Each structure stands twice: as C-alpha cells, then as structure tokens.
C-alpha cells in the first residue's frame, strides 16, 4: 500500500501557486526527506497531506484514504509535528501527554511515551509555557511518536533542538518507528540529518519536484565539476548535454552538476564536451542542494 500519493496536485494561496502539478508516491515503510529552499513549497505540501489546505486541482491519498473526506480519521493514523505547532501553553508536560492519550486511545503506548520523555530528560510537572523552545518541541515529538502512527509527518522537526537532542530524537524515534513499519516524511534544512536518516530524497524548487531519488543513488550518481570561464564555454553548452543537471556561475568559474559517477563525468567532459583538466568530485547532499537549487531561477 502507498502511504502517500500525490497526483498532479496544484495548490496555493490566493492567486499564487505554491505547488505546481506535482506527483509522487511514498510506499509504506519508507523514510523520505523533503528538502528545498525557503518558499519552495515544503510546508504547503505537508499541510496538503494533513488536509489543512485543499489542492486547487489533483488528488491526494493518505494511507489509502482521501484526507479531505474525513480528515479526523486519517489524522488518527498520523503523527505530526510542525515548526510552528502550538501546544497548550497552560498545560503541564504530563497533562499534554494525557490529552494526546485521550485523542489516540487505541494506539497510545504509555511505555514508549515514558521512555522517550526520559530520553529527552523532560520535566513532568512544568507548564509548556515555562519550557525552553527546544524542550517544548521535544514534548510535541514525544506526543507525535507515542501513539505509534502509521505515518509520521515532521515539518522541520529539528528546529530549536540542540545537536545532541536532534540526533537523539532522530535516532531514537524515527529509527524506532521505521523499524515498526511506519512511513516517515520529514522536511529539514539539516542535510546531514536527511542524508543519515532518509532512504529517499524529494527536492522541491518553486513548487515543482526537482529531484526524487533514492539516497543510495544520490550518493553515487552526482558529480560536481568546476570549469574556468574561457572563450567558447558557457552554461548553455554544458546544459545541452543530457546528463548535466545544473550550471551555476561563481566568479569566473562554472559549477556544473552531472548526473553521472565521477569517472563517467570526466569522460563526458573530455570526450563529448571537449573540456580537459577540470577537477571532478562526488557530492554530498548539502553540496548537491546548494548547486542544484542555487542554479535555478
């Protein structure tokens, strides 16, 4: 079964289109990282999946159901944390968890909640308003995970968490849920987290999907080459080659990304485009993100 299915979804606010006819699906059990620059449409995509925003056209299926028919039934099977989520500030940590238990009575796992709260070193009887931003976020994460959702949707879950808490959360919760067969969709600006945790990457740019690849493929398939600007070489020449994904001009050099292994890219540059002596190297996700999104207008 597909956990998430987007078919030609167009969505926006007022006259502005934010998601432009995007289609993708996520099979159950997959961990998918959603990346993109600010304003790329990540949050809108997530809100559409949560039935908070209705698409102008296209169809969405979440866990095999249309989320707009009876959103509450779909949300019962989802755990959700967003960057701007507001927990009741007047409740104590323990009360917030009890509230969530009453909302997810069938699937709430006391043991898991206790274990995660202990791992995060959360206080029990402190009002949410008195917690630090990071601690409040941790409470939200515990609540989202402790009812063992079939689908966990996280919109910038790590914002406000210190590196150790972030790693703790990702390794404990996401890994745990994924082992149980849950599907996880999370957006993040931390490329290292995405690289480490997800097995698939969805890169958005200006409301469109720029890249949709398995993480293993990504690590091997993309090569960066830096070409000095000399007469006869321009970005069009490079982009004309089918394997050239993007070209970004920096100072007097072109940064070109090829969807090839380093040796294959070297071969293409020398034999097909006719440029020699340019260094090529495999890219990590952060470099790929900067090069690909930076080259887009």
């Amino acid at each position: 079964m597909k956990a998430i299915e987007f078919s030609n979804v167009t969505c926006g606010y007022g006259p502005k289109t934010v998601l432009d006819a995007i289609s993708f699906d996520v099979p159950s059990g997959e961990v998918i990282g959603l990346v993109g620059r600010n304003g790329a449409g990540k949050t809108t995509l997530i809100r559409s999946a949560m039935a908070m925003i209705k698409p102008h056209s296209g169809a969405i299926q979440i866990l095999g159901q249309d989320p707009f028919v009876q959103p509450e039934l779909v949300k019962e099977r989802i755990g959700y944390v967003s960057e701007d989520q507001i927990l009741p500030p007047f409740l104590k940590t323990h009360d917030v968890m009890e509230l969530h238990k009453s909302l997810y009575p069938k699937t709430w796992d006391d043991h898991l909640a206790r274990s995660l709260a202990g791992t995060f070193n959360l206080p029990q009887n402190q009002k949410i308003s008195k917690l630090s931003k990071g601690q409040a976020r941790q409470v939200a994460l515990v609540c989202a995970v402790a009812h063992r959702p079939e689908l966990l949707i996280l919109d910038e879950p790590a914002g406000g968490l210190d590196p150790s808490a972030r790693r703790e959360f990702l390794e404990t919760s996401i890994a745990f849920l994924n082992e149980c067969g849950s599907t996880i969709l999370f957006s993040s600006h931390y490329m290292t987290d995405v690289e480490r945790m997800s097995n698939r990457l969805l890169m958005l740019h200006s409301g469109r999907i720029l890249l949709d690849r398995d993480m293993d493929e990504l690590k091997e398939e993309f090569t960066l080459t830096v070409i000095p600007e000399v007469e006869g070489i321009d970005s069009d020449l490079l982009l004309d080659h089918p394997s050239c994904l993007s070209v970004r001009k920096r100072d007097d050099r072109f940064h070109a990304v090829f969807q090839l292994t380093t040796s294959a890219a070297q071969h293409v540059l020398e034999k097909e485009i006719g440029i020699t002596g340019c260094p090529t190297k495999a890219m990590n996700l952060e470099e790929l993100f900067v090069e690909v999104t930076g080259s887009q207008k």
Partner: protein
Amino acid sequence: MKLIRVHPAGMLLGNLKILAIALILALNMIGLIVFLQVQKGIGMQDPHSWGFLIYHGLIWMAAMAYLIIVGARQKTNAFCASLPLSTRRIWFVQMSVIALTGLLFLTGVIGITLLINSFATFTEPWFLIRSGLVVWVVYLLSAIVMQLVDRPYSIIRPGRVQILWCIGVGLLGYKLIEYLLGGSWLHLGSISLITFMVAWGFTQILPNNYVAPTQDEGEAVQAENWNGVEFKPISSLRRRLIFWNLLAKKPFFYWFGIPFVFLFGMMCSNLDDWGIFHHDQQLVYSLFSVYLLLAFFGASLFGDYRLDPFPISKRYIFRLITIPLLLAQLLGMGVAEFLDRHLEKDHLAVDFSPNRKGVWRLTSMLEHADWTLDHTAPTIQAPWGESQEAWSKHVIKGVPLTVFSPFSTTRESSPDFIAYQLSRAIDRIYNEKVAWEKIREDFLVANNQGACVLNQAGQTFLQQLNRNRPASNIHALPVLFGFTMVVWMFFVRRLVATSNSRYTSAQQKRRFWILLGILFALHICAMLMAVSDLIRLDTSRTLFAMIVNEFSATWFGKILLWVLPLGFAAWSYRKTESHFKNLEFGIDQGCML
C-alpha cells in the same frame, strides 16, 4: 523623526486600523450625542443607566486600550537599545508617538463627527473639541502611568498585571464618558497639569538602561524521572475546555468576553422596562450582540490552525467555537426573560397615573395595543357621544402601518371619558366587567389643579386586579434568539466562505473587518433611524409584543412561536456548520510558505 521610525511605537502611526476605529468611534459618538439630546429633550436626564454605560464604555474602552497597549507595551526594541541614547530620550520618543497618534486619532473622530454634525446639527462643535482634548490628555496620562509596570524592562510582559491595566483603562473609559458629558476647559486644564507633573516625575525615576526580560521563551527545566508515570485519558469536557482555550491567542479575552455576550443577551431580550436597560433599544442591542458574537467567532476562527493537527473534525471545532457563545447568549436572554416575568408583575397592566410631565393618563401593557393599516388611528366614541382619536404612532415613516392605544386618554378628556376608557381596558385586559359609572363615582376625583386623578381606592382597586392576573403570556425569547442566531450565522457563512487558500490572508482579514463594520454600521443606523423618527423603536417594540401576544393566545400559536424561529435558527446553524467543513488552514498561518 528617524528615531520615531525605528521605535516600536512608531508602527502606531502607519496603522490603518486606527482610521477604521476612528470612524467607528465617530459613528458611536454621534449615537451618544443624539441619545443624550433625546434624553434631555424628553426631560429624562438619565445617561447613567447600566446599559448605556456598558454599551458606550465598552466601545471607548476597547479603542483606548488598543491604542495604549500597542503604543505603550514595548518601551524599546533591540535596535533602539543598541543606540547611544539615554532612556529618557527613548521614553520621550515613545511618548511623542503615543501623543501624536492619540491626537491624530481624536482629530479623525472629531472631524468625522463634525462632518456628520454639519448635515444634521446634533451638538455644538466646541463641546466636541473640548471633550476630545480631555480624552486625549487622559489617554496620554494613562500611557505614561502604564510605563510603571515592569519599569526596568524593555517590554511589559503579558500577565496578570497587564490584564489589570486593561481593566484599569476600561474603568477610565467609563470616566471618559462622564467627561464627554460635561467636559469643561477647567477639566482640561486640571488634567493637563496633572499629566505634565506625572510626566516630569516619571522622567526622574526612569532606569538607566532598559533590560530584556529573561523569561520570554521559558527556560530549560530540570528533568524528572518518568518511570512508573501513569497517563490517564482526560475527560471529554476537560478536553473541550483545553481546545477552547487553545483557540484563543489570549484566552483571557474569551473569559472576559463571554460575560459581555451574556450581558448583551440580557439587554436585547427584555420586553418590559424594568429600569436597568433602555427598553426601546432591543434592535440596537440585538445587532450589537451579533457584532460581539461575530467578533469572538472571527477571533476563534483565526486560532483554528492550533487545532488542525489534532484528529478532531471541523464540526467539533465549529461547535467548540459557537456553543459557549450560544449558551452565553441564550442564558442572558433566559435570565432576562425570567426576571421579566417576575418584575413585570409589579407593573400595572392598566394604570392611570401621571407621566414625567405630570399629566395624568391611562396606560396599558404593550401587547394590548392595536394596529391599523390606515395612517390615522380610529376615533373612540363613548355612548354619550364624546369622542377622541386614539393615541397613535407610525412604525416606519410614510408606511400606513400605525400602532395605537385603544384606551388612551389626554389632558382634555372628561372624567366620564376616562372612566369609560378605564372600564374598557379592565374588561379587555383583566376580563372583569366594571361599569364606567362606578369607576367615575368611586375612583376618580379632581385634584387642586382641577385635573382628573385616581384616588387611593382606585389605586388599590387597580393593584388588586393586577395581583390576580396571570403572568404575561408572551414568549419573546425564541423570536429574539432566532433572530440573533440567523443574523449571526448569515455573517459567519460570509466569513467562512473566504476562509480557504483561494483567498490571500489580506483578503480574508479584509472580509472579516468589512463584515464587522457592516454590523456595527447597521446597529448605529438602527439607533439613528430611531432617533430621527424614521423607524420608531417604541412602536416597533409594541407591534412585536402584540404579534407575539397574538400567537401566544392559542396552543397552536404558542407552538408555532417556538418551533418556527428555533427551527429556522437550527437550520441556519446546520447550514453554516456544513460550510465550515470546507474551512482550511487558519488565516494567521495560512499564507506562510
């Protein structure tokens, strides 16, 4: 000027909302002045009734509290604090902005009021200008004094102290009304002097440096052991209360607002004049009730995004928002009707007593009046030929529908005619046959001025009859509640129609303010129409009482009276609920990409 631009209070100057508030206040001021003129005109110097004070005080309080809180709350921002400026200079910049905004605001209010005043002279211009200046100085004074809260900090932190300040400003609003009634140059001078002295004193105790509050975003707190902790699901009622509080950005305002909805429920429902509220203003109060209900609904609607992540239906959220407001409104109306039923027993259904001008006249309960579609009321003729045109008033100017009292008497009526009318009224209202000759003989006498008056025996007789009469048969609650509901739901549907991603945040907010503005304008129009005699609220109310009474006379009518308006209200509610299902992410957050 550059400092004003960078100071957080500077945003007040470019805030268009202030213009809208100024317009609303100007309209309100016209209503206030007209009301006072009318009260003076009929020799009823009673502008201090609770209804009047609450109504006008609420509006002034809201406007002034808004200006003061927005302008005075943040004493400085990080940028201003980083500049090499003394706190005294920063304070002076802030107070200048507040003073200037207040002056512009009141100039707007007075300007619009004078403009309207020039078309139909309600008051003398100096009265307005003087009152406006008094309001301005008091506003400045309260802004200065407010700086005492959290004195060393750069911002006044939200909390109980701030809330108490809001209430303090509210109370000040009441006093402002009094100043408006009789604001003199002496008032203005004395308050200006006090303000100057307070301002000077305040500059002497300013801290050397404003510090940022440390608790703004909470602090990391010591962890506890979670082993063995039990999680018990909370009750459905508690869950509702949590969600209800979560909907509001500032839950305090909800808890503060619900009593007002209750109060206006009371004010718009009472049919009998029992002295607390102005009994002719039901329509005005009803429309203002809807205004309040829509304002609270809108505020909750904008907080809807806080509940969106939870697995609860839109219907649940809709009921969460509307039911507390509905209950408050209904309870207010119910309490008023209950009190009405007890207090109206003290009112004589047939009375012969002097009015405010000392003229003795026969009055009967509203529901026993009559109506005609002829412009003129019929002539009442006694068996011996004496006749008199019944007291009558139009409902809408130019429309033939006229309400008249078939038992009215005038200063010129003969004692026999008065006795005849009393006999008819007693027969019709108490179903008791008393010969007019007996009334004339036993109960009517001439006083020192030669006017026909009721003697002690007559008064006792009328009171005795009144004591034995059954309680009023009128059930106005379903009609009034139905009316309020249907109008409220109509406006809610218009608001919800744009609460989706096809509209920008600005469009959605604009729609909300326009709808509120329409309701406010409608209620001011109702007030102005009443005063200008276009639609008479007293005769409308009488007509309403007559119709309700007519329906209440039979069981079938009584059932219709309950079923029709409540059924219509329920239909309207369900229809709105189904529209609410299409609501999308709350507008506060909806346009964040």
